[in-house]
């Protein structure tokens, strides 16, 4: 098995920054990433795409090239297209690359697995043509594809960013169906003091809104009873806004009401998680360095709590400094000296969060969906069925998983876990922390039996 000093999982901003900082400190790094090219979702395919459509995507995207450039160096083995499916003590990381399973081992692991779109279970959200807003971004960034007739549904700055990019590319969205209310914004204003420290961020937001106004993109706010209608694929979004029922015809729907940490890998190694009421999700419990209760396991980036790309990059560097110190490549003094400016930077970068969390809260209807709405996309389990299992005595998601298969499909609960926890907490009167979350086990992603079998000692012996 290949050995190195630290394994970094994920080549987004946090992972790339962590790998570069670790290599700077003289560590041998294995950087594993599922995608064929580095960048993560925020800088997806940036090296190839920046020249093609950097204008539409903006500087916030193209500057990701600084990070991808920094990982092309000695000391970093970038294993692209490597899908990690098991992380075991020691640490031994099993992954699949080019159809073959392999392993790499290191005393330290930095998990930089990023964010997932917060599940937004609405009637019709499984129809072809309905995607996450993140998927819309990926289509544009990586493939230069724009939906001709798209409705953007939900809340949050990402929705405006996508809409603005669509306007710039000449295919504005048919409409924005926004779930936040004026009252949300008023509540958010008390965080403005902090947000003003993140002024450039706010200014960008206002500029995007102005772009949408100029392009006369219809915006409906405070939308409720949202559903996607269609026979075999998305054909319209129906909702109420301004006291009236409305229907907007479309063929693509992009859903978004925030992102949440992708906790699968961290949970699989036993990192404790805690409910974050402000962000409506579970966050892993980390110290200021990204260290966890599992010795040797560090988390950085959105996977450790949503902060965005800039915070992720900073956190990646901070975690790498701590790893380098623990491995004896940096003195504690040197570690602290290098971390001090990064910590100050991070504090400025996170100042906007409380405002954003308050201004764009998740859509209540999608946090506690109606009985008939599918919650588990893989196994097609409805919210009503989950509530029924609560009546049968299920007090946690692992028991509902056994009773009704929610979370058993290939996505392994990534897009139903938070909803199931919320539904059970609502039904039992327990907190989300008391209710808990799915037990995440290998394989983190499906792996063929043939690949697994080829790793068997007996098979290996025969091959040798």
């Amino acid at each position, binding site marked *: 098995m290949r050995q190195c000093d630290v394994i970094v999982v994920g080549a987004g901003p946090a992972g790339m920054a962590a790998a570069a900082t670790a290599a700077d400190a003289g560590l041998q790094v294995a950087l594993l990433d599922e995608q064929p090219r580095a960048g993560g979702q925020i800088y997806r395919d940036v090296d190839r795409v920046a020249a093609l459509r950097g204008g539409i995507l903006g500087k916030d995207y193209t500057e990701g090239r600084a990070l991808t450039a920094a990982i092309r160096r000695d000391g970093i083995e970038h294993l692209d297209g490597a899908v990690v499916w098991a992380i075991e003590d020691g640490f031994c990381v099993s992954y699949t690359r080019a159809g073959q399973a392999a392993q790499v081992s290191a005393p330290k692991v930095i998990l930089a697995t990023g964010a997932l779109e917060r599940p937004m279970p609405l009637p019709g959200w499984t129809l072809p043509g309905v995607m996450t807003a993140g998927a819309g971004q990926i289509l544009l960034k990586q493939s230069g594809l724009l939906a001709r007739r798209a409705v953007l549904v939900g809340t949050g700055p990402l929705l405006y960013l996508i809409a603005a990019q669509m306007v710039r590319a000449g295919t504005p969205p048919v409409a924005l169906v926004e779930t936040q209310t004026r009252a949300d914004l008023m509540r958010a204003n008390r965080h403005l003091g902090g947000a003003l420290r993140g002024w450039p961020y706010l200014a960008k937001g206002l500029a995007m809104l102005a772009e949408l106004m100029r392009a006369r993109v219809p915006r409906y706010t405070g939308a409720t009873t949202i559903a996607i209608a269609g026979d075999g694929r998305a054909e319209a979004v129906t909702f109420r806004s301004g006291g009236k029922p409305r229907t907007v015809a479309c063929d693509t729907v992009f859903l978004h009401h925030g992102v949440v940490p992708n906790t699968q890998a961290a949970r699989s190694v036993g990192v404790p998680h805690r409910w974050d009421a402000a962000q409506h999700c579970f966050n892993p419990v980390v110290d200021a360095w990204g260290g966890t209760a599992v010795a040797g396991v560090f988390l950085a980036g959105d996977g450790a709590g949503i902060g965005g790309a800039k915070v992720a990059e900073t956190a990646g560097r901070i975690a790498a400094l701590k790893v380098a110190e623990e491995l004896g490549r940096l003195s504690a003094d040197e570690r602290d000296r290098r971390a001090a400016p990064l910590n100050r930077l991070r504090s400025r970068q996170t100042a906007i969060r409380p405002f954003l969390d308050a201004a764009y809260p998740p859509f209540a209807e999608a946090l506690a969906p109606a009985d008939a709405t599918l919650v588990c996309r893989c196994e097609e389990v409805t919210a009503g069925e989950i509530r029924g299992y609560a009546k049968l005595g*299920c*007090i946690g998601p692992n028991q509902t998983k056994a*009773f009704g298969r929610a979370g058993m*499909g290939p996505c392994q609960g990534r897009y139903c876990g938070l909803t199931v926890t919320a539904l059970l907490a609502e039904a039992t009167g327990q907190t989300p922390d008391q209710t*808990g979350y799915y037990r995440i*086990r290998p394989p983190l992603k499906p792996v063929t*039996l043939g690949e*697994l079998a*080829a790793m*068997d000692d007996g098979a290996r012996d025969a091959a040798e």
Partner: protein
Amino acid sequence: MASDYAVIGGGVVGLSVAYGLLRRGLTVTVLDGGDGSHRASRGNFGLVWVQSKGMNQPLYARWSQRSAAAWADHAAELAELTGRHLGLEQNGGYDLHFSEETLEQTVANYEILKAKLDGDYPYEVLGANALKREEPHIGPKVAGAILHHQDGHANPLRLLTALADGVRRKGGTVLTGKTVTGVTRGDEFVVHCDDGTAVGAGKVVLSAGLGAITLGPKLGFKAPVRPQRGQVLITEKLPKMINRPSLVARQVDEGGIQIGATNEEVGFNDQVTQPGLSGLAAQAVTAYPALAKAQLVRSWGALRILSPDGLPIYQESPEMPGAFLVTCHSGVTLSAAHARFLPDWLEKTAAAPALEVFSEDRFALS
């Protein structure tokens, strides 16, 4: 108000017993653990199985046969009551062999058992060609199989759900999220929980799986059970490719291929491991080569509850008469017996099954 019975443990074993007591008109309160408790009922393989059981204790073979024979009625009754179908198939099952030697040795052992069972052990040996006719996807390295006609399989999670539903529909009370700390006896039994809950009952059944290790001695049982880890794999849902179940693999009614299982003495560690997964995958691919292209979507490690000789324990407490220990590692196979026959033993009716061989007397004091 006190129930006739308090059943400690809401897994397949406890719920089967509770269901059986309820269907006789008795009142029952079940105390079940939390979402993260060790639950063999969520991790078992789902076989309703007779062959190879009780090689050294024909009465265990008989008890398994009796339960398997009652399973169809048991499943039909639960389906009618709850609308939940258990996916029971009892068309026989295989013990696959990768060498002629092990096949012959097993047949020799089965013949000895068959004689002890007065010939009631309906199995046949399928050579490689005969097996291939029954299972077109079987691989060339499989030497043959023993097809036992009393074997079968069911959906164990739907059994668990149907029992949980059925117990409630029959008027049982189920308290979940409870950790039982002890049992006292005055005029009646009182079961105490760590959250202060106290449940009164005329009799107590301890069916808490590995929980019996700590609770058993408090009720006067030896409860010499230990955990044994079994790792199990399940693939994506596939079109039908395996007809009959075996200990190596079975296709569940939803389409996934379930592959089992390791036998590991690792204490309470219930993790899955890459070597465990790879070993099981290698065996499954050898048995069914087409599985090499199937995606593994889930795996789990569950802890079997094993007694020193692997047999069930049915024991009334010598210190606290009216308290019973019920534990086994074949809760699915024995579900029908626990629901339909065990209540006679608990109630000491004339129809009580003879379960003396399963008492704790067989374990020497240590």
